[in-house]
């Protein structure tokens, strides 16, 4: 809010103090980060052809929804949750189960009831279901803070994965669910890549606006206060648990929406897409982009997608190492960020 005026004295001082000049340059890192990443994305899109760029755009939109929603919890409220992938999974599975029309008559695979709902009917159900789960989970998790919260949220991610894997009567377990329906409005089906991208971006916009609305409100300010000192916030008359629960549920619902999109986009889901590691990567994205900044999360998601896909094109890197190499790069990035810029690429707030 006050960034502009804060810089001015620095400029004045830099005339007689070279150190201040370096600091000034460094304080523009945000700008550089923005420019570099966007330029990278554009170059990538141009080089790789529109088809692939559209695919990546959709992947980005989904990750970005997740990152923005998680930032509400991690960055603004200060609850370092590693369990977000669970809500993503709940959304995805609900949409998959409700919309799939696949016939599983064959003897060899597990059959589950099919409903054949349209996507836009199933999605709200998934979102609400995730919300309800979040309420139940949140009531319990509200007791925990800091490290313990991290631990139990790890637990939540693992529990969710196991439920997806083992509740075979609903999820078909390891078989996964096929033929998830594409979104459809009236007669208009979003079954080509471009229209799906458009839909995903609309979702992303809605999520971003909603998040922006939340964090600029008084509600958002209370969240940051809770992040800083929960007990002291209580003394000023805020029922902290309600605030935490509300933002937790909202964030879970956004993640579930992303999950629904994801299921519909891939048309097939199985538990492997909802493993703990993905959740950890998601937290990394949020931290990479910057805590308590929405634009940062977008940038973080962008970086992540570019890293993931860009790695495929690194010369001399054998294909089987692409996935791992991406993790190595991400890990090293995290370390460097924490070392030199603990607030992330764009953030103000430090962990």
């Amino acid at each position, binding site marked *: 809010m006050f960034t502009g*005026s*804060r810089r001015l004295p620095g400029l004045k001082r830099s005339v007689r103090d070279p150190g201040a000049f370096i600091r000034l340059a460094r304080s523009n890192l945000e700008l550089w980060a923005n420019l570099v990443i966007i330029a990278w994305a554009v170059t990538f899109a141009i080089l790789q052809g529109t088809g692939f760029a559209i695919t990546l755009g959709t992947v980005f939109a989904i990750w970005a929804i997740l990152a923005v929603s998680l930032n509400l919890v991690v960055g603004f409220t200060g609850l370092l949750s590693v369990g977000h992938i669970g809500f993503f999974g709940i959304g995805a599975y609900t949409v998959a189960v409700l919309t799939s029309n696949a016939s599983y008559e064959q003897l060899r695979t597990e059959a589950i009831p099919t409903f054949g709902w349209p996507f836009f009917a199933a999605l709200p159900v998934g979102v609400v279901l995730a919300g309800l789960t979040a309420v139940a989970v949140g009531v319990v998790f509200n007791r925990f803070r800091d490290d313990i919260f991290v631990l139990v949220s790890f637990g939540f991610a693992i529990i969710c994965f196991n439920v997806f894997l083992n509740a075979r009567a609903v999820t078909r377990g390891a078989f996964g669910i096929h033929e998830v329906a594409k979104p459809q409005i009236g007669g208009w089906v979003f079954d080509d890549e471009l229209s799906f991208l458009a839909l995903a971006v609309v979702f992303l916009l809605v999520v971003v606006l909603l998040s922006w609305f939340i964090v600029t409100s008084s509600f958002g300010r209370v969240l940051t206060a809770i992040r800083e000192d929960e007990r002291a916030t209580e003394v000023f008359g805020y029922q902290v648990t309600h605030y935490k629960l509300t933002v937790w549920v909202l964030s879970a619902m956004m993640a579930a929406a992303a999950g629904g999109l994801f299921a519909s986009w891939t048309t097939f889901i199985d538990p492997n897409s909802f493993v703990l590691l993905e959740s950890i990567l998601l937290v990394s994205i949020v931290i990479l982009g910057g805590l308590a900044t929405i634009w940062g999360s977008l940038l973080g998601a962008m970086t992540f997608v570019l890293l993931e896909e860009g790695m495929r094109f690194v010369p001399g890197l054998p294909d089987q190492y692409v996935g791992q190499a991406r993790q190595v790069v991400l890990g090293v990035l995290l370390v460097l960020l924490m070392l030199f810029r603990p607030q992330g690429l764009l953030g103000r707030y430090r962990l």
Partner: protein
Amino acid sequence: MRRRSWLSLRSSKRTWESSDPAGPIVNDMEEQNGPSAITRENGSSADAESEPLDGPFILEMVNVSVRYGAVSALEDASLGVRKGEVVAVMGPNGAGKSTVLKGLMGLAPVVSGQVYWRGERLTSATHEIVKHGIAFVPQGRRLFTHLTIEENLEMGCPYLRDRAEVRRRMDSVMELFPVLHQKRRDLASQMSGGQQQMLALGRGLMADPELLLLDEPTLGLAPNIVKEVFHTIAVISDRLGTTIMVVEHNIKGVLDIVDRAYILDTGRIVFEGTPTAVRETNILAEVFLGKVQQAGPDEQ
């Protein structure tokens, strides 16, 4: 010869547990004066003022600037302490008093300037500085809360191998603050704020320092204990020649016991002089008023 130690304050009832050559000498001194003889109210500081100490600084800070990120907490500050002196550092909140002490101890990000100890540059890390004989009691009674009180005191001189000496120092501290003796097996976290402050002070004394840096030693203490602390400071300095640098807000109390005072305002040293001078010039009020005038327009 071994320099005189504040430890000699301990009453003569207890016997020396080691064959420390300094023992008998100190003991003698004690008997001459007796613990009650050193009880000295305000008047004594006047002696110190009448014959101001002279000679080179044993600790000197030259043009030190400290910066926390964009905040400049100390700018070109130069100050020094002579051997045996008690020096106060005063100033409004946020003036940089704590920063001065932290800068001396290597705990603050010093961006320019030097610190000299006995004429040599002091560049080492904090834990090395301590070995030169400087002890620091930080602001806000920071203790090892999961150690017992005894262990906390022992931590005051972690590298002292001579158990008997440790014991003796501990006894002396406990004599100074009897409550510590009562609770010696309790965890430090189980004490009230004031008791914790005593423990912090005691831990600093355990190092048997040549220079003692105290950051608000009376913060949150009950009046009787405040008196005791000031008294102890006066005694340590006066009788044993321990050099002391103290940051205080309790101006009335501190001006009575110090030889000199530095006054800081917004990171600069604005005044240096004897307590009398401070009282006469009414500098403290000026500093404060100046600040108020500054605060009027925005600092953009």
